[in-house]
């Protein structure tokens, strides 16, 4: 897994690439933590290059959702490949996340 990080005004954009599982999700959690401490909003996580995500990756995203909620910010996920999207459905999480098609839509 690789993560790149950019900021745009108050927004923080994370681009995640590769496989998110129990081995790699701690690194994702660590990256997001800094943006959450800085109260970034919207916090955008671009999952367009994620080929696999497991429940530990989903848990990390739920934590981030709850954390932005605490300071009144917004979390947006974007670019989900159909396979990854299906996983959100399986876990019945598609409706609790704000899923956008792409980065531009996520920054609006």
């Amino acid at each position: 897994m690789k993560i790149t990080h950019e900021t745009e005004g108050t927004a923080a954009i994370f681009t995640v690439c590769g496989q998110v599982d129990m081995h790699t999700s701690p690194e994702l959690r660590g990256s997001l933590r800094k943006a959450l401490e800085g109260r970034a909003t919207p916090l955008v996580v671009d999952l367009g290059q994620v080929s696999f995500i497991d429940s530990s990756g989903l848990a990390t995203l739920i934590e981030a959702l709850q954390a932005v909620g605490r300071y009144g910010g917004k979390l947006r996920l974007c670019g989900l490949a159909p396979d990854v999207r299906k996983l959100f459905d399986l876990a019945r999480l598609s409706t609790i996340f704000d899923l956008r098609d792409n980065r531009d839509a996520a920054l609006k």
Partner: protein
Amino acid sequence: MTDTTGRQGDHAACAPDRLEGTLPSHPKYLPLVRAITVEAAELAGIETETARHLMLAITEAWSNVIRHAYHNAEDQRIDFRFEASPGELLIEIEDHATWVDPSRIASRPLDQIRPGGLGVHLIQSTMDDVAYTRNEHGGTTLRLVKRVAPAEDPTS
């Protein structure tokens, strides 16, 4: 894993039609476990989308062994077996930890949104059979079965 068949020197033990193996309980092996799953699914004639669901179920099951059976110890052994036969793929994941009452193995209710507690749900919604049994090592064996519409064997 065990080899108790007789050996006659020449062309000894007959191979099972399956992959058996052992890996340490370190999460860094998860991509390898998924790569094996994908190839085993292809050998069993399972289509790509179903194979992706299998990757998820195996990942969740394997992670649960590391987390709950071995309490995140990274040097314990996880034995596995993939067995493809026409119409089904059987996967067994075996720990050497303690036996856990299967009634205690369950995910949180899905409408309760919080991090964690999804793994068992994802395993159950993906696999056709899910069974936890006590094994000869005193630990738990998870037996997962995925049934597939039997297709012609492309390799024969």
